[in-house]
């Protein structure tokens, strides 16, 4: 039986993991809110982001061991990776999803699975099957407070995710572009009549979602290493998080991500099952939430109109 301190430790680890899920889940939820379609390639954009970040970071760093420059290089690498993924996301939307916008709902989904396959296997081809470690941009010795150990990279993860989420919330709620985005997700054809350039909004949504995925990819590669299929499982779980929170709802994705992270971290020791089954916990959570409350925690119940 684990002690209280151990459970608090699991909770802390869960919050760190959950904030990464939340970042990635935002991309799923924003795209779903506007296009009503699951961007299956989102998880692989995360992987591309992690690789871009890793390559930029190691290139910038060279042999330098200056702690200030290490941290600066890390943030520059993160920005580069965000920009690259934003462009990639927009490109994918143009090529693979836009021609299918008026098609049956199955068509873009299959196209997205195809894109995801191309990205993950292309990366495996270019970078090889071996996983790489993302070097910490600082000394990662855990800080111990009252029996709880927290590592600097966990602090970084939580701080960066919170900043990103606050910026996104402000962007969506306070700016003109954000308003246009909300309008488009409510009713695409009406917002087009009101003079909103829907195509631009959709491109923008993909760009923002992909940039957030890049951040999520870099942050999760501290714990999980960087490899070509890293996006599949993490992406799936982030999607589960988006569904738990209520897909299409931005606050829902944040709550769902945190909830899933904590559930995954605490679930295995609480139920006394091996931690290798934590993926099963996540999917079991998905199926339970879909059965009990299919619209998610914060989602609205939508009736299908003919």
């Amino acid at each position, binding site marked *: 039986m684990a002690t209280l301190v151990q459970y608090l430790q699991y909770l802390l680890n869960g919050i760190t993991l959950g904030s990464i899920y939340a970042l990635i889940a935002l991309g799923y939820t924003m795209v779903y809110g506007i296009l009503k379609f699951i961007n299956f390639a989102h998880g692989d954009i995360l992987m591309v982001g992690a690789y871009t970040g890793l390559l930029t970071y190691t290139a910038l760093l060279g042999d330098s061991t200056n702690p200030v420059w290490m941290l600066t290089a890390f943030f520059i690498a993160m920005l580069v990776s965000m920009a690259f993924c934003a462009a990639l996301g927009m490109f994918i939307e143009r090529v693979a999803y836009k021609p299918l916008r*008026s098609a049956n709902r199955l068509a873009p989904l299959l196209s997205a699975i195809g894109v995801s396959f191309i990205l993950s296997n292309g990366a495996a081809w270019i970078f090889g099957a071996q996983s790489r470690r993302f070097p910490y941009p600082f000394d990662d010795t855990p800080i111990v407070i009252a029996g709880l150990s927290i590592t600097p990279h966990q602090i970084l993860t939580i701080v960066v995710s919170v900043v990103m989420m606050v910026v996104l919330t402000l962007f969506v709620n306070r700016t003109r572009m954000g308003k246009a985005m909300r309008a488009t997700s409510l009713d695409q054809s009406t917002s087009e009549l009101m003079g909103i350039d829907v195509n631009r909004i959709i491109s923008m949504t993909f760009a923002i979602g992909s940039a957030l995925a890049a951040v999520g990819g870099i942050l999760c590669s501290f714990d999980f290493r960087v490899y070509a299929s890293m996006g599949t499982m993490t992406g799936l779980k982030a999607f589960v998080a988006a569904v738990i929170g209520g897909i299409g709802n931005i606050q829902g994705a944040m709550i769902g991500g945190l909830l899933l992270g904590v559930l995954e971290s605490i679930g295995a020791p609480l139920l006394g099952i091996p931690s290798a089954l934590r993926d099963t916990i996540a999917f079991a959570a998905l199926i339970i939430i879909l059965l009990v409350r299919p619209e998610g925690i914060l989602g609205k119940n939508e009736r299908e109109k003919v």
Partner: protein
Amino acid sequence: MLNFFQLIIIYAGIYALMAIGQNCITGNTGMLSLCHAGFFCIGSYATAIICKTFGLPFWFSLPVAALASGIVGFLIGVPTLRLKGDYLCIATLGLGEIIRNIATNVNPVGMMSVPRAQLFGYQFSSRNKFTFILLIWFFVLIAYILFRQLAHSRLGRAMVAVREDEVAAASNGINVTKYKIGAFTLGAAVGGTAGCFATAYTLTVQPSSFTFMVSVMVLCMVVLGGMGNLLGVILGAFIIEFISYFPQLVGLSSVIPAQASQIIYGLVLVVMMICRPQGILGRDKYRYGDPRSTFSKLRDAVKSRKGGEVKA
């Protein structure tokens, strides 16, 4: 060379069975399921356990494998098939992963040296590929005939109605959930028999071989050949297997990386969806995409890439 051709034909047969099952789910009834690898896994394990652990003949394991995956498909289907398209896709994907996860946790090595299948004292060994081809394609033929009859029956037409428009189908007195679960169970059972033959051929079962990639490959076969068209689906199985064994066939497996064929699967899905969503042998009448011709669609796709406006 001949050896590889025979290998391709054997695997095309095994995957054709899977694709026929997937076609029943995705092609006829319009549900995007991504856990065929899971059913394949259950079928393989059923055969391995029955032939090795219980020492019963292979022929006994065939219905058991079908039944086991059918039951799992039914149990999975009852809660998940009430979900709409995209949710169903994720839920089935998760279930496929759960099946593999559990199989890996029970025994990561899997099972080795399963006894061979026998018929009137004749042993089907993997060394003699020709008899194996006969065995597998005999069952593909049976599945083809059965499913073609099903597609032209009252049940099959009801399934197509569910695919085309659930609300309209329901208002015409079709019990949508019942048909969905039925199609799903049937597709799962056929996927299980495919696993059965795979075990009989390789005589081993490894949990690591039932990845998500297998499900995507099967889906790719259905999409490529033509959703809802059985001959097309079998053709799709042939093409995909040919692509994946092409490097070995021409002796360039050291030059062409293993990922190349998987990148091609991805490209196949994207290009087919944009240019010919009904598949190679699909009918225009039942096409999935929008009703414009392939040419005008390509033109629009090129235009939109150049930043021009697309006609709705």
